[in-house]
């Protein structure tokens, strides 16, 4: 048993648990987007940040990938956490302004507008790569992946063409935290034939 503190409350965890898992087990809410129980965590969206305080020194970590340790002091709702989370929300609102899910979550945390410039007002994907991880880990395929780098990063199938590797199981659509995959899957799966076999032989 490892004992440590979340928001001043003493919690117990087993080795191998993460801070987020322990917090959820004790009913402490930490917002997440790129985290899903079915796949391994990747710490992409940084929304799950928490503050670790040690005397006058403190640091911010992504709780979904931070392993528990004896005696650490975790705070999930300090000014610093709230401030950074607000920045993250503002950046997300600039990256994918068309996503209703993100807008709703941001609003819940008091963020309704962004100071950053919006490149594409129709964008709804935040490129967290959760869909690609689901495709690989759950389905066992890699029909979709994260393509390109930096600001050009996007989700799709090789050469942005419908691929026969995709079995159209819809795991990516179900797991997508922003709802973007509903649009994107149409460019990944091979659409079923709409024309029926003609009757005359």
């Amino acid at each position, binding site marked *: 048993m490892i004992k440590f503190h979340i928001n001043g409350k003493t919690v117990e*965890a*087993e080795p*191998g*648990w*993460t801070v987020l*898992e*322990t917090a*959820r*087990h*004790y*009913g402490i*809410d930490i917002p997440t987007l790129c985290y*899903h*129980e*079915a796949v391994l965590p990747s710490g992409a969206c940084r929304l799950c940040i928490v503050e670790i305080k040690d005397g006058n020194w403190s640091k911010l970590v992504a709780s979904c990938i931070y392993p528990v340790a004896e005696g650490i002091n975790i705070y999930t709702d300090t000014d610093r956490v709230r401030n950074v989370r607000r920045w993250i929300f503002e950046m997300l609102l600039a990256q994918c302004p068309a996503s209703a899910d993100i807008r709703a979550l941001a609003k819940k945390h008091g963020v309704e507008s962004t100071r950053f410039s919006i490149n594409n007002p129709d964008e709804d994907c935040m490129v967290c790569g959760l869909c690609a991880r*689901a495709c690989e880990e*759950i*389905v*066992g*395929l890699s029909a979709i992946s994260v393509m390109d780098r930096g600001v050009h990063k996007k989700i799709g199938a090789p050469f942005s063409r419908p691929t026969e590797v995709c*079995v*159209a*199981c*819809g*795991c990516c*659509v*179900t*797991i997508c935290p922003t*709802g973007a995959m*509903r649009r994107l*899957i*149409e460019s990944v799966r091979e659409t*079923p*034939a*709409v024309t*029926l*076999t003609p*009757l005359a*032989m």
Partner: protein
Amino acid sequence: MNHNPKIGIFLCKCGQKIDPMVDLSHLKKKITSEPGVECCEILPYPCLEPGKDLIIRKIRETGLNRLIIAGCESRLMLKKFERQMEPEGFRKGQIDIVNLRGHVAGVSDLTRAQKAEKGAKLISAAVAEMIALHPSIQQNVVITPPPVIVGGGIATFSAAWELAREGIDCLLSIPEINPDGILTHLHETYPGERANYPRLKTMIANVLASPYVRILPPGELENLAGVTGEYTLSFKVPGDPMVRKHAAGTVIACLDAELTPPGPEFGYDGKTVLCQTDFEDMVWNRKIPEGNTVFWISDYESGQPENAPLSARSAWNIGKHILENSSKSRVVILYNEQMALPVTAAERAIGRRLGLIWVPYDKSVRPILQAGYVNFGSINDHLEHELPWDHLVLSPIRKIGRQSLHTAKVLGIVHEDSDFLGMHHARVRPEMVGREESYLAGSARYACDLNDALNQGRKAGKKNAEMIQKSKTGRLFIPQVVCVVDTDKCVGCGQCQELCDCGGIGVADGSGGGLPRVVDPMVCTGGGTCAAACPYEALTLQNNTNDQREARVAALSRQMADDEFVAFACSWAGLPAADNAGNLGMKYDPRIHIIGVPCLGQLDPSVMARAFLDGTPGLLMVGCSPEDCHHSFGIDHAWSRVNLMKKLFSLCGFDRRRITVAHADLNKPEEFIKTVESFTKVVASLGPIEKTPENQSKLQSIYRLVKSNSRVRLLLSSGLRRPWEKTYRGDQRFALQYDREDFNAALKEEFVKARLENVFMGSGKQSFNIEELKTAIAEEKSHVVSQLSEMVSEGILNIRYKGGKPFYLMSAN
């Protein structure tokens, strides 16, 4: 394996996603008293590490051997739970997930308590299924005899090389044992591959010299019997009456396609208008042709457009060789504009240096071959241009040859009505795909070049080696969910073998009809439409049996109110559509109760009949659209079975609308909701099937008929669409004729019989006269009399005479 079920149910709060909407403590109270339930816990997150540790502690404390998690989508979470619980002895089928979040919590405006009631119904149905589960004993597969590579394709050598490298003995059946001899004929199946010959020759020599490789004396493969680990292959030598038999652990078929020149309609004459195969022979073995050589990539015109890049590759290889060795030659490759050039930029640069010209032509203008010239429509200026030629080279027609077809037929891997052997049309997860890759290699599988064929062989060799190594260390197990045949019941009608799309069903020994079938568990993918189609209940899908599904649907149907109904949703369309509707917070009528199944094709008609017998007023089957079924033709099979139910409903006077197939799309949850709303209205307007003794007896008869009447089941399964068929009995071309001619009449006869049987079995009375029977089932006298006499001749009933009038009674057996 412990057959005494101890079920643990874990209810997920899922943070704030389930708990505030569903009264979990009420739900817990309701299901704890269910039989077989050992414990029921409410956890914040059973899917996270803390939850997992708690579940494992519970398993160890109370000896649980079945788990039901009520949380979210089983499509996403099941794999994780199965992986986590494997060390605790849980295997496929022993864990089930009920989607409380997506199907109950958010999708309706019911109160917390009402939602708990709905959740309890769904969970208790899952409990009933778990109780009906009889987990199979985990069985080792032992592979002692060596793998045998048959078919004689070039992939033989790469497969054998891979096996020999792993130190595994293998037997080869090849017609030729001289490396040069093998290479002499190779251009007939793989034209334009001379550059690879030296490398290939070394490999062939290495294989033939390897101490692990033995060559079988030449002979023709005549029969294959048995299953993985204990195959027997019979070879026949022409002129020798003795059949030679070899034991084989695994079999790899290496089959090459047959390349034939296109017919005279392309002007083929074998002298100046040639095919790539004979042209290559001419270039290398006789003399490099001088003057103009035009390669016409004629695959689009000969009806095999998918092979155009292959033909273009070999044309490029041959053309390059000509230009490199003769200064008096010119080479043009004429190709359809629809084909993407299969050469790299560097190769195009080489082509330019050598003067090899690629000429695309307009796809709407067919090139015409004249003496000395070929004309084509240009895509640039739309003029008709002419190319002069001295030798015109056509693309070959590629398809599986007679010899390969024979071998494939013997091995049971042939797909009728197709040019190639590649079998899997199923679009499913990799773990659900059969092992085609490990037993089939070469260009007869699909059109490919030499390199691809050798790679396929290498892959097959590697996979077989892996399997054999695993079996040596005792780590090779039969997959959990596969079909098993009860050989006492199997009459060898072969319906399952025809319907099977994975090639896993064969004959135990011998050949011909009427022999009991066996399932090769290492090939079976557990699709299960074969099991649902068996007329004699001889085939079952172990760990996912028909009894389990019947138990589940019965348990759920029993709890349906007058306007509630059960729905089956397939995991490729209906279930994801429902899950996504739940995730998006859409609202729909809560009277639908969804049971997820891998494919609707798995559902035996007896499951549908059972649902009505146990009281659901309606049954909705939500599957893929017919052109988009992920398992060959599961939705078509479900359609045929639903139609059988509809016909029976007509005979009973029930409304045919009570059972319906619906088509959904995973990405259109709003359409799924329309389906639900519409069907709910239908069910609500129809109301329940009144539970009068007469109706119960009718439903009982339907259930008995579809479950165990082998005549009806045989008629039904012979009308199901085969994996290779473009049309089937229920198709518009045949449906009306099929109904009129045989199916409806037979159904009517058998239904009257089933009703009569029910009268005899349902009452305490021993014997009946005709009048009594007539009134009991409300049928015309002539029908009753004819069916009674048939039942007497079948030995089901005995006839006695009292005062000159016939009385019927059930015979003793």
